């Protein structure tokens, strides 16, 4: 079985978000770039399945749509344990553009399971996975919080509002995974970092696709008034404020 993980290259989650050029461009000054946290969990789970002999996973590939500056992030995925990588050489314009590039790059490669993280921590779109599945005419399962192989069959936990469903599905399919898919992201060991330099990273040129959306301007959240403190001995004051001022109870 061959597994593909789609990676986003995103600012580290503790980055102070700023913009330049009259709030039209993200300010990359001093930003640390990382594998999108959910994609990292997806990769971790794929590697766990590869180590499980019963799961019969022969290869884990990662793909990213980005310019050469995303290669450190791709190499990190290889250092964590992916077998090989694909980079589609293009500036990601929107989710439709990214999904189109991935669809084109992998359409003849016969991946059995394609995994996307639930959203990227930059644009929070939750879109590439579903779009890619539709473009490839593949079944998809979203909100996946667990994935196992039992007697050769794929068994998935899908979160639903207020509960979960356990379902089985045949390959090929696409999974959009979230919290629970793996406990902690795997960290690259020194040996992995050394090996990553020698692993294959294929660069594919982009196809001509138009983005369907344009980011025109960013806004910072309105500065919020300072927290109104209530004395711990007068909890009733809080009840009054919530009822009369905030009007939420």
């Amino acid at each position, binding site marked *: 079985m061959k597994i593909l993980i789609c990676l986003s290259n995103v*600012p580290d*989650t*503790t980055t102070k978000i700023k913009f330049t050029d009259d709030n039209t461009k993200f300010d990359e000054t001093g930003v640390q770039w990382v594998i999108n*946290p959910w994609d990292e*969990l997806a990769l971790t789970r794929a590697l766990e399945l590869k180590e499980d002999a019963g799961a019969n996973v022969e290869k884990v590939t990662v793909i990213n749509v980005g310019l050469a500056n995303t290669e450190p992030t791709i190499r990190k995925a290889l250092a964590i344990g992916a077998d090989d990588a694909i980079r589609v050489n293009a500036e990601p314009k929107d*989710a*439709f553009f990214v*999904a189109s590039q991935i669809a084109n790059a992998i359409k003849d490669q016969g991946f059995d399971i394609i995994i996307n993280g639930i959203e990227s*921590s*930059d*644009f*929070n*779109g*939750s*879109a590439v*996975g*579903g*779009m890619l*599945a*539709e*473009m490839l005419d593949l*079944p*998809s*399962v*979203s909100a996946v919080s667990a994935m196992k192989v039992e007697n050769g069959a794929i068994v998935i936990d899908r*979160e639903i*509002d*207020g509960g*979960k*469903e*356990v*379902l*089985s599905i045949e390959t090929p*399919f696409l999974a959009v995974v979230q*919290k629970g898919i793996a406990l902690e992201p795997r960290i690259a060991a020194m040996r992995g970092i050394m090996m990553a330099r020698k692993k294959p990273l294929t660069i594919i040129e982009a196809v001509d696709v138009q*983005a*369907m*959306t*344009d*980011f*025109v*301007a*960013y*806004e910072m*959240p309105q500065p919020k008034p300072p*927290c*109104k*403190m*209530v*004395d*711990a001995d007068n*909890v*009733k004051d*809080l*009840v009054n404020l*919530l*009822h009369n001022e*905030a009007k*939420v*109870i």
Partner: protein
Amino acid sequence: MSVLVFTENWDGKFKKSSFELVSYASKIAEMLNTSTVALSIGNVTEDELKNLGKHGADKILSVTDERFNYLENQAYTSVIAQAAAKESASVLVFANNNMGKALAPRVAVKMNAGLGAGVDQLPKSTEPFTIHKKVYSGNAFGNVIIKTDVKVLTLMQNSFMIVENQKDGAVETFAPEVNEAHFKTKVKDVAKQTGQIILTDAEIVVSGGRGMKGAENWGAIEELAEVLGAATACSRPVSDEGWRPHNEHTGQTGKIIAPNLYIAAGISGAIQHIAGVSGTKCLVAINTDKDAPIFEVADYGIVGDALKVLPELVAGIKELKS
């Protein structure tokens, strides 16, 4: 032309988010001078379907085919696209929840439509069609132009007020073409809570962190949730410790929620936790550490031991309600 709303029901009753969606869609329909059509998939009574008319649905398409009892993304996508084609929909609206996130991107590709995911207000303009959405996990917002003729939007929960807007709400049975090849998943087991309030659909959420000191103290959280009609949640360390189930974890890697009122008891407010609740309208923090980062984002705060404060809060709210 029309604006098509994808609604969701919970055991035959529409979710609160579906009424938000219909209210929202009917406002967009007004902006575009067109009508609002709601699509319901599942076993919902005519009376309940009619409730969508009270919030702005001119027409309701009802699909009751049992093959749709469980979500099958490709099959649902096909139904929604057929409904959109039949009603010449130019805007399709979904909730930005599990189901909306599963379907909206697929539907967008199928209909050659641009996707605006996680919008938090009405479009700023319809020409060009400009939406406003959260980016960088709530640390900023983006204005985005959707350039295609057909637009697909997912609306953040609790970001649009439910309004009364009585419309015709004519119920029409809709029998779409169904492709058996689209049914690829088999549901083997379902664990579904009953009777409780669903966390992602809740208006009020009471959440506990490490400051609650142990699973045995959760009675105080549950009691407050009960008097407020709230759902319960927790921070990541709490679910990692196994004090509470993982499905209660709110935060960047857990559930992302946007209730009207979020009460954080014994939660210090790590940036990843805040990212999951940044859409909250009113945030109340109770923490022993006056320098905890949660107070920087809270609207109201009490420096104190949550285990002492929560029972007093319960008493105060009971008094208010009586």
